[in-house]
C-alpha cells in the first residue's frame, strides 16, 4: 500500500499544484520520485509531528491541499490536539496519513502499535476515516479524499499487501461489496479483508458462503448497507485490526442499538489491552482469534443449523 500511496501522490501532485506533502521524517527512499519532481512541495518537518500538523493547517488556510505522513501511532495520538484544534475545528482539507496502522508493526512493540488510530480519528467531528485493504483501494480512496473539502485520515499498511478482486469498485463512504453470500455477512476493514477472503476460500468447499463487505470507510459509516444487510442475514461478523473501542465493531454496535436491528453480532479483533511481547501479526491472529482461521471457524459456528 505504501508504494501505491507514493505513486498516487506523484500522479496527483502532477495534476494539482495545490498538493503539498509533509512527512515527519519517515519514508526513506519511498518518496524519492516525489522529491525529484516536486522539491518545493515536499517538506520533511522532522520528528516534530505537532509542528507538521500545524504547518499543514497553515498551508490549508492558504489554499493548499496538504498530505501529512508518519507512522500511524505517531501521526494520530501524538499530535491529536493539533489535528483536533488546528485542522478539524476549522474543517480544513488536510489528509492525515498513518502508515503501519493498527498492529502492522506488532513486532516493534507498544510504541509502534496503533490499535487506537481509527478510534482517535473517528472521535473528531467532520473527519472522514478510511482504512483501505490493498494498494488498489489505497490509490482510489486517496484520490477521492483529495477531492473532499474537510479533513480525513487514511490508514495505510506496509509494502506488498496482496490485491483482491471485488464485485464493486471502492467508493468513499460506501461499503464495498466484495462477494455475495447468503445467511451470514463478514464485514472487514483495512487489510483484514485479505484474511477474510482466505477464510471464504476455505469455506467454499464446505458450502458456507457468507457475504463479504469491505468497510474501507469507517466514518461516515455506510448505514444504508447495514440497513439492507440487517434485513437479509442472520449474523454479522466484524473483523478489525483495531482496539474494540471506537473501531468498526463499536460503530456497527452503536448503529444496531440505535436502529433496534437484530442480526447476531460477533466482533473479531484485538482485545482492550496493551499487546506485550512483540508478537508477529500471525501470532496475534491466533492469540486473539481474529485472522483467517478464526474467521472461518466463526462462520462455521454461525452457519450450523440449530
Amino acid at each position, binding site marked *: 500500500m505504501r508504494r501505491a500511496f507514493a505513486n498516487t501522490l506523484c500522479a496527483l501532485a502532477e495534476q494539482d499544484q495545490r498538493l503539498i506533502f509533509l512527512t515527519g521524517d519517515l519514508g526513506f527512499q519511498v518518496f524519492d520520485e516525489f522529491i525529484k519532481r516536486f522539491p518545493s512541495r515536499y*517538506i520533511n518537518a522532522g520528528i516534530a509531528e505537532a509542528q507538521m500538523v500545524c504547518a499543514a493547517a497553515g498551508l490549508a488556510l492558504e489554499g493548499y491541499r496538504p498530505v501529512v505522513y508518519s507512522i500511524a501511532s505517531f501521526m494520530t495520538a501524538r499530535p491529536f490536539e493539533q489535528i483536533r484544534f488546528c485542522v478539524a475545528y476549522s474543517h480544513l482539507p488536510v489528509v492525515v496519513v498513518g502508515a503501519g496502522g493498527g498492529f502492522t508493526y506488532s513486532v516493534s512493540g507498544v510504541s509502534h502499535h496503533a490499535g487506537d488510530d481509527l478510534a482517535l480519528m473517528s472521535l473528531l467531528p467532520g473527519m472522514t476515516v478510511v482504512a483501505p485493504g490493498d494498494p488498489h483501494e489505497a490509490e482510489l480512496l486517496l484520490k477521492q479524499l483529495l477531492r473532499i473539502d474537510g479533513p480525513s485520515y487514511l490508514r495505510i499498511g506496509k509494502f506488498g499487501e496482496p490485491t483482491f478482486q471485488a464485485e464493486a469498485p471502492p467508493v468513499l463512504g460506501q461499503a464495498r461489496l466484495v462477494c455475495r453470500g447468503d445467511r451470514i455477512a463478514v464485514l472487514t476493514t483495512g487489510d483484514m479483508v485479505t484474511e477474510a477472503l482466505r477464510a471464504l476460500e476455505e469455506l467454499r468447499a464446505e458450502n458456507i458462503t457468507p457475504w463479504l463487505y469491505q468497510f474501507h470507510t469507517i466514518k461516515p459509516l455506510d448505514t444504508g448497507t447495514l440497513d439492507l444487510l440487517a434485513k437479509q442475514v442472520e449474523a454479522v461478523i466484524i473483523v478489525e485490526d483495531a482496539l474494540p473501542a471506537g473501531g468498526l465493531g463499536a460503530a456497527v454496535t452503536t448503529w444496531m442499538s440505535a436502529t433496534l436491528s437484530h442480526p447476531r453480532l460477533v466482533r473479531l479483533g484485538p482485545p482492550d489491552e496493551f499487546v506485550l511481547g512483540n508478537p508477529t501479526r500471525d501470532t496475534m491472529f491466533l492469540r486473539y482469534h481474529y485472522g483467517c482461521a478464526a474467521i472461518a471457524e466463526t462462520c462455521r459456528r454461525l452457519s450450523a443449523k440449530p
Partner: protein
Amino acid sequence: MIASAKQLEERACSIRATCIQMAHDGKEGHLCSALSPVDVLVALFYSFLNIEPKTPKQENRDRFILSKGHGCASLYAIMADQGFFPKEKLSEYNRAGAMLPNHPCLHALPSLEMSSGSLGHGLGVGTGMAYGLQLRNSGARVVVLAGDGECNEGSIWESAAFAAAHRMEKLLFLVDYNGIQAVGRSDEIMGFTSLEDKFRSFGWGATTVDGHDMEAILAALGRFPFKPGSPSAIIAKTRTGVSFMENDVLWHYRKPSVEDLQRSLTELGAQPIHRTTP
C-alpha cells in the same frame, strides 16, 4: 495608518479602557492577558500590518494570528476601532452565540486567520502560511503574537526550528512577556532564561523591547526583518498598564467590578471606544 508614537499611545489608552469595559460587561477575566499586549497590538495594527478591514481576506494581506486567544478582548477592540466590524458588537463580548467569544473562533468571526484559545499552535500555523506564501513568491508577512507562558509549550520550539530551517524572513513572532501565567510567574517556570537568547540560538534574529515604549516598539518593527534569511522575534516586556492590576496573578482571572472599572478609567484618563448600555 498612524505614524506618530504619541497618537498611538493615545489610541492604546482608549483600547485599554475598552478592554476593561468589555471584561466588566462580559463578566470575563483574562484582563491582564488582554491589557499587557495592547501597545504592541496597537503598533502592529495602526502602523505595520497591511490588512484592509473592509476586505480582510485579500490575497496580498499580511497575516496576523493572536495565538494567546484568551487575550482577545484587545484584538477585538482594535479590530472594531479599525472597522473590521461595528463597534457596537464589542458590547456582545463573551455573550453566548455572538461573534466575539472569549476565545476567538473563525466560525464566529471569519475575518480572523484562525481560531485560538489552545496554546502553542499559532506559530506553527503561521509557519505553514509563510511556507505557502513563499511558494507563491508573495510579499505578505506573517505576524504571530503569543504569550510568555505559551512559550512553555514544546510545539513553539518545534515551530521555531522549522521557521529557521525554511528561512522564513517574512515571519515575525512577538512574545507578550508579561511575566505572569495562569498559576505562577513565567520566569520561575521557565528557569529564568532569556527568550531572546533562545530564539537567537534557534537561528532567529531577536530583540527585546519595553512593550510600552511606543518609540522602541516602532523602531523594532522598523528593523524587521532583523537578520537576512531568518525569522524575527520581538520579546516585549509588558505590564497591564493599570496600577492596581500590576504584577498580580489574581488579575489573570478576576472580573472587574464597577468600582474597578471606574477606578481604571479614571487612572487611564480614557473612555471605551464603543457606546455601552448602562
